[in-house]
């Protein structure tokens, strides 16, 4: 009995001693923080972080191979504790969540074709997915089973629906999806994204100069998710209240709905969600990336400057705006009149942007109060110059010194400053752009007897927003098309009339508009007491001549020159965009330029090089412009409420109103979801063919 006990005990003792010695000899200095961090993790060993268990995850965190928030279960609390343990401070990171990029369409209903398969990957292996579209969702719900957090469910349309509140951005669904439709998207990637030819894009999204994801926000509106709709707009347009009022909607020109009836009222919808937020009087939270420690100066607080500032701030940079006027907004404030864009609304919108932590200094002019050298000395890493185009072009008709001649922008600006100026007598406005119409309608509201717009070409060639022209006509403004001013008549240095020549339209010029040619001997007199010249603007770049300015090359149109692909000027740290780069344009173009420049500046200050956008989409993709649609019912477009004529004249009340919720949801149903939804012509044809065959058989 003794021997076996001794043998067993002996072996055990030897093993214990050997282990003890080995542990000593082969002791590996292990960072005590491994254990510390591992203790803080939940210990579920779920593998969601991508490491083999919690211990491995802890090691990776300590080594810096993983972020403190690597644990997908623990979420913020755990991350905070881990960060505190490691002596780091945790700043609120921007959320990363999974986003599906497909709405299925006919594909979704075909899921039952897969002879009993219930896994997308199996379907993919056997049939390579459906034959209709190479992109689409297979709808078998593999992502739903892959999600460990119950954030995905199957929606009514047979497509997965993601719950952003539950999604932790672990990426299991992305790995499970064989079609590569789901992606983990952070706010940063969205801001830095620009359309590519390789993407499946709706025509409106291609046409919009700011590349707003129109179908996506319309879809949110349709589902009543107004907050998400607005946040979608804000991914590429920080001024939805203002654009919602004054944008001439280039997007709607591409809208496929017009094949059947009228384009979707995209801008009414944008205005609706923007107004919805303001009516709640609580601002939606806008996520901002952690501070990068880079400082950017923005010169000019117009739409381009505000847009760049907004996106740069959201990318985590410190931004300071310098504005020469007493308030921010640029042309939105000093050009566009109150009856189109109430300044109370503009103020609210701009405040929301500044609330992100953007510093703004007004009443400081570049070239007068500060210089570029000063900004560099102050430690700004890059400068965005968006000074707009404020200089009125003249007509060259000896108008200098005459009383009763006003340049358009000056007129509007003065009007803005001293609200009480009244206009008397007859007014002639020369020009056909938004500035001309705004001058005309402003004059009419402040007491003019009669207002005439004199324009060289015909109505079709007018660059002003079509809606503006209609409103001006309704208000009784007279239009003299095909008339060019040739002489100003005056008495005692006071204007008494304008001599105009009749024009004929000749050959198209390079801009595609037909060139007007004067008809000899067709002079006529338009009697008037005030002539407003609104025949074009250019940037006021006098400041470039002052001290402390680098040499910035200009174009032959007297705009700042820069590389089109990056908006970077010849001085590497100076970027530009908006009206001072393109010449007078649209607000939404300025907004797009602001985000585009923000992308370039972001890469410039972080990486030093600005990567080109491969296959950058600039023209409309022909394949996306299908010219027929099947199975779409006609549905009339909604109309904005409009203030009656009596109420309009003599006041500066806002003319157009916002559509109500019911109309907005209805209008959203008119969207055809181009680009995210398949209109399968073959299927439709096959169906019709089968129908016909059946009919023939029965006869």
């Amino acid at each position, binding site marked *: 009995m003794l021997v076996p006990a001794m*043998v067993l005990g002996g*072996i055990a003792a030897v093993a214990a001693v050997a*282990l003890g010695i080995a542990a000593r000899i082969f*002791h590996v200095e292990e960072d005590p923080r491994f254990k510390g961090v591992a203790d803080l993790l939940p210990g579920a060993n779920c593998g969601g972080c991508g490491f083999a268990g919690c211990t491995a995850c802890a090691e990776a965190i300590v080594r810096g191979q993983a972020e403190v928030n690597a644990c997908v279960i623990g979420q913020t609390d755990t991350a905070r504790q881990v960060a505190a343990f490691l002596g780091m401070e945790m700043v609120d990171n921007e959320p990363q969540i999974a986003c599906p990029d497909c709405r299925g369409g006919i594909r979704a209903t075909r899921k039952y074709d897969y002879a009993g398969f219930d896994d997308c990957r199996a379907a993919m*292996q056997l049939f390579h997915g459906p034959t209709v579209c190479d992109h689409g969702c297979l709808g078998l719900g593999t992502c739903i089973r892959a999600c460990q957090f119950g954030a995905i469910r199957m929606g009514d349309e047979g497509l997965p629906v993601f719950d952003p509140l539950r999604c932790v951005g672990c990426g299991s669904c992305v790995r499970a999806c064989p079609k590569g439709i789901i992606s983990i998207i952070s706010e940063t990637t969205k801001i830095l994204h620009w359309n590519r030819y390789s993407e499946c894009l709706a025509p409106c999204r291609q046409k919009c100069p700011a590349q707003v994801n129109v179908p996506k926000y319309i879809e949110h509106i349709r589902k009543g998710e107004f907050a998400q709709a607005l946040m979608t707009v804000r991914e590429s347009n920080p001024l939805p209240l203002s654009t919602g009022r004054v944008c001439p909607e280039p997007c709607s020109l591409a809208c496929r709905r017009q094949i059947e009836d009228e384009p979707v009222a995209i801008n009414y919808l944008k205005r609706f969600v923007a107004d919805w937020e303001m009516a709640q009087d609580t601002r939606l939270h806008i996520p901002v990336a952690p501070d990068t420690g880079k400082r950017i100066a923005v010169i000019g607080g117009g739409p381009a400057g505000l847009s760049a500032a907004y996106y740069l701030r959201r990318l985590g940079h410190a931004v300071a705006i310098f504005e020469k006027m007493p308030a921010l907004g640029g042309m939105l404030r000093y050009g566009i009149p109150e009856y189109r864009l109430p300044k109370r609304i503009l103020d609210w919108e701009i405040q929301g942007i500044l609330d992100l932590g953007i510093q703004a200094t007004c009443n400081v002019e570049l070239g007068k109060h500060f210089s570029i050298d000063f900004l560099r000395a102050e430690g700004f890493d890059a400068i965005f110059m968006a000074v707009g185009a404020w200089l009125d072009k003249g007509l060259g008709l000896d108008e200098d010194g005459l009383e009763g001649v006003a340049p358009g922008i000056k007129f509007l600006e003065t009007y803005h400053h001293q609200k009480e100026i009244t206009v008397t007598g007859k007014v002639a406005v020369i020009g056909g752009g938004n500035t001309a119409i705004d001058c005309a309608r402003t004059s009419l509201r402040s007491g003019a007897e009669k207002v005439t717009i004199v324009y060289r070409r015909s109505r079709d060639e007018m660059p002003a927003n079509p809606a503006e022209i209609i409103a001006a006509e309704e208000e009784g403004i007279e239009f003299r098309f095909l008339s060019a001013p040739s002489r100003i008549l005056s008495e005692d240095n006071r204007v008494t009339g304008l001599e105009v020549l009749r024009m004929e339209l000749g050959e198209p010029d390079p801009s595609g508009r037909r060139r007007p040619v004067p008809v000899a001997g067709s002079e006529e007199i338009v009697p008037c007491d005030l002539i407003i010249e609104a025949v074009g603007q250019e940037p006021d770049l006098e400041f470039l001549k002052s001290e402390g300015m680098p040499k910035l090359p200009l174009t032959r149109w007297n705009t700042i020159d820069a590389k089109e692909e990056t908006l970077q000027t010849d001085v590497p740290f100076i970027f530009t965009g908006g009206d001072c780069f393109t010449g007078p344009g649209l607000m939404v173009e300025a907004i797009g330029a602001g985000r585009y420049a923000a992308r370039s500046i972001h890469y410039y200050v972080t990486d030093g090089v600005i990567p080109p956008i491969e296959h950058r989409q600039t023209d409309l993709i022909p394949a996306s412009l299908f010219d027929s649609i099947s199975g779409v019912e006609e549905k009339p477009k909604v109309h904005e409420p409009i203030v009656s004529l009596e109420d309009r004249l003599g006041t500066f009340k806002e003319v157009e109103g916002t559509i109500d919720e019911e109309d907005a949801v209805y209008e959203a149903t008119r969207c055809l979801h181009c680009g995210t939804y398949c209109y399968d012509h073959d299927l439709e044809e096959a169906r019709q063919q089968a129908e016909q065959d059946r009919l023939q058989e029965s006869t």
Partner: protein
Amino acid sequence: MDLIILAVGAIFVQNILLAQYLGNCPFCGVSKKTGTAVGMGVAVIFVATLASIFTWLAYYRLLVPRGLEYLQTLVFILIIAALVQLVEIFLKKQSRTLYDALGIYLPLITTNCAVMGIALLNIKHGFGFVDMVVYSAASAAGFALAIILFAGVRERLFLAPVPKAMRGTAVALVTAGIMSLAFMGFAGMGK
């Protein structure tokens, strides 16, 4: 020649998993992905060979001279457990890469019946030292082969429309049974 026959027999005919039904828990637990199955397989080959050598020595040098053969099970458990721990400590210090590759499987093997089984079978068959080493390594290789094949099947199975009641371990066991039947086809080879 004899050694080759011994090895082939151990790998195919008397496959430790599919013919002797030993080591079923890692067979079901670690066989969901081919990658992990390979890791497990290699770890088992390594540990089983090493453990067999030590247990064989302990049996013939320690137990047989004292007539204590009946203690073999207890002693073997002790030796294998201590050995695996030792190997783990050693690898962690000496070969970090090997540790990272096999490390997480070692604790799983501490109580693995395949390893224990091989050690006991060595004694039962009365092998000499060389035969013992070959037999152990080959048996463990058989284990690796079976678990890797099985993981391949299971990866496919995961995608297949399995009736709800059969999903997971249930269908895995059925599959294991069928694989075992297939391996019985090798039985004729030994004779």
